[in-house]
């Protein structure tokens, strides 16, 4: 991990904390850098991708800025900022309006303006004059081998190293490691940690913990959720918008999931939970099985005969699948088993019917959702076959720029698949009304045109004359993209006009 490499980019002024209200700043610098890849997704949403060293720089910029007013040691400023979740306005407000002593005490740091000379703390060893005993290892040292924070608790360098290493590595504590003395809440500042820890790997871990807590407490920052990606995305305001990381991963800034327009974050979360938990398994069980009336074992009917014999060797009950009554009185005419309490039987049948309907509905949407997800995976294979085609075309006197339409076609195909996938989540939670009918028509159109494009790119393209391809492909993908935009615009308009009624499912 690099530290403090200077970056010329002007950093956004807003510290982005949850508690900061209106973003009124002293000197508002307008974000100028527009990320390279974002335009294709959403032009007006601006964000920046930060590397680890950018984040470190960003933190130190905030500290410098606070310090240009407060004039604190940078280490103290960092602890205070962390205490206020990096909300510099809130810190300034408290600093100038409230009791400063109280503020430093709450943040567990010694007031740097009131440094009292450490009062007789160094515990002099009784045995040898001019030495101190370390309370952790019980060894006796010259005072130069002992160190501590402003609170006056002193330990030897070796014990500090072990203590900090344990906190960082075993407990994963970063910014909030307290003094090693019992009941002393004073926090160890970052410079002291870096000075006292010996192992480079532990230092790196510490830096990571610090940047991580910074990102976690800042609403305007989010780690890229892609595995092993160390970039974070910084926005000017939180919104349900797609962002593209340097690693290529596209995700929703608001929730961190893959970009999922048109369905909103909360419903997607509900859907994912539903797909992950076993609620549909239990629905399947209640729709397709019955319980043995004697021993309660769950039974699935696997043949046509309604005379059931429980396979539980300790039970072996004979009963009728239809009425769950004992088989004995049925004799040969099992279908006359209408002697059970009518209401009870009806209620049981209705409940099973409802379970079945709910299951079928879920499976309908889930199958389509999964199917587009699967197709989306396959479409990625298209990139390589399209690449061959592009090379072939370049050998036939077409320029590189002229053949890029093919890649663009696959890009759009993938976007359409992704949108379609999430339309089924949207639809699953959608109550029927006039607008939902229009939505379903749009969905149908998009699905049809997407399949046409997919089929063309996968199959027909090989038989076509090279000259015709470009026109046809462009027509198709433009139409697809148009349908996709129309569907999304309609959904977005519906969000604004409150057309969509959510179905509890």
């Amino acid at each position: 991990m690099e530290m403090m490499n200077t970056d010329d980019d002007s950093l956004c002024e807003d510290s982005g904390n949850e508690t900061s209200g209106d973003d009124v700043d002293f000197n508002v610098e307008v974000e100028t850098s527009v990320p390279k890849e974002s335009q294709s997704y959403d032009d007006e949403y601006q964000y920046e991708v930060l590397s680890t060293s950018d984040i470190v720089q960003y933190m130190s910029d905030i500290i410098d800025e606070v310090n240009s007013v407060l004039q604190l040691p940078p280490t103290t400023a960092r602890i205070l900022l962390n205490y206020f979740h990096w909300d510099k306005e809130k810190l300034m407000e408290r600093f100038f309006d409230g009791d400063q002593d109280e503020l430093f005490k709450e943040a567990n740091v010694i007031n740097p303006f009131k440094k009292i000379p450490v009062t007789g703390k160094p515990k002099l060893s009784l045995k040898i004059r001019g030495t101190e005993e370390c309370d952790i290892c019980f060894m006796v040292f010259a005072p130069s081998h002992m160190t501590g924070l402003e609170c006056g608790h002193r330990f030897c360098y070796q014990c500090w190293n072990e203590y900090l290493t344990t906190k960082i590595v075993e407990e994963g504590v970063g910014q909030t490691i307290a003094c090693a003395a019992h009941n002393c809440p004073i926090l160890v500042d970052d410079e002291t940690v870096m000075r006292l820890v010996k192992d480079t790997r532990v230092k790196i871990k510490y830096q990571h913990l610090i940047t991580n807590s910074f990102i976690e407490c800042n609403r305007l920052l989010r780690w890229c959720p892609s595995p092993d990606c160390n970039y974070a995305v910084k926005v000017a305001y939180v919104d349900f918008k797609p962002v593209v990381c340097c690693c290529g991963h596209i995700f929703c800034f608001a929730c961190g999931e893959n970009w999922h327009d048109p369905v909103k974050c909360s419903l997607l979360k509900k859907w994912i939970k539903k797909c992950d938990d076993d609620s549909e398994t239990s629905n399947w069980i209640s729709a397709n099985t019955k319980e043995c009336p004697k021993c309660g074992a769950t039974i699935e009917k696997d043949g046509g005969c309604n005379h059931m014999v429980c396979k539980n060797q300790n039970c072996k009950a004979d009963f009728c699948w239809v009425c769950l009554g004992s088989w004995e009185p049925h004799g040969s005419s099992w279908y006359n088993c209408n002697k059970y309490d009518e209401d009870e039987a009806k209620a049981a049948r209705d409940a099973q019917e409802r379970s079945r309907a709910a299951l079928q509905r879920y499976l309908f949407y889930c199958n389509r959702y999964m199917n587009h997800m699967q197709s989306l995976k396959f479409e990625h294979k298209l990139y390589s076959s399209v690449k061959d085609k592009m090379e072939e075309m370049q050998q036939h006197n077409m320029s590189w720029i002229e053949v890029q339409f093919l890649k663009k076609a696959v890009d759009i195909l993938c976007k359409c698949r992704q949108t379609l996938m999430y339309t089924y989540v949207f639809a699953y939670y959608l109550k029927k009304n006039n607008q939902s009918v229009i939505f379903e028509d749009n969905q149908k159109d998009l699905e049809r045109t997407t399949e046409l494009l997919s089929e063309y790119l996968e199959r027909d393209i090989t038989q076509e004359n090279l000259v015709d391809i470009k026109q046809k492909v462009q027509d198709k993908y433009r139409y697809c993209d148009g349908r996709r935009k129309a569907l999304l615009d309609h959904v977005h308009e519906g969000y604004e006009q409150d057309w969509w009624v959510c179905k509890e499912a």
Partner: protein
Amino acid sequence: MAALPRRIIKETQRLMQEPVPGISAVPDDSNARYFHVIVTGPEDSPFEGGLFKLELFLPEDYPMSAPKVRFITKIYHPNIDRLGRICLDILKDKWSPALQIRTVLLSIQALLSAPNPDDPLANDVAELWKVNESEAIRNAKEWTRRYAMDN
């Protein structure tokens, strides 16, 4: 086993030289990290007159991590469960390497004098301690008499 750290040797020596009143901690003959502990029930507590056996073990990374302590004698106390495990902050997140066996045992003795039913480990005991303190104290005295005396 690795050589015993100086800290443990010194702590053991000091425990022997200046024992804490009402507490004895003796290292096991075969394992210097394992201590046989006896704590006398504090005066004016329901545990008065009892002798409570505990075991104390210093883990590999002691004093960076807390000693492991457990009551062996059965005790009726809201912060000590059926297995003798103790709910005490300094044995968990409030551990500091500057604490010692001595301070830990003193804290445990103090816990016997001042049970804290609002941070319970044994829920049933804590509940009774809150709704009917006198009955809880009667139970504690009875358990002390039955399990912690004449043995």
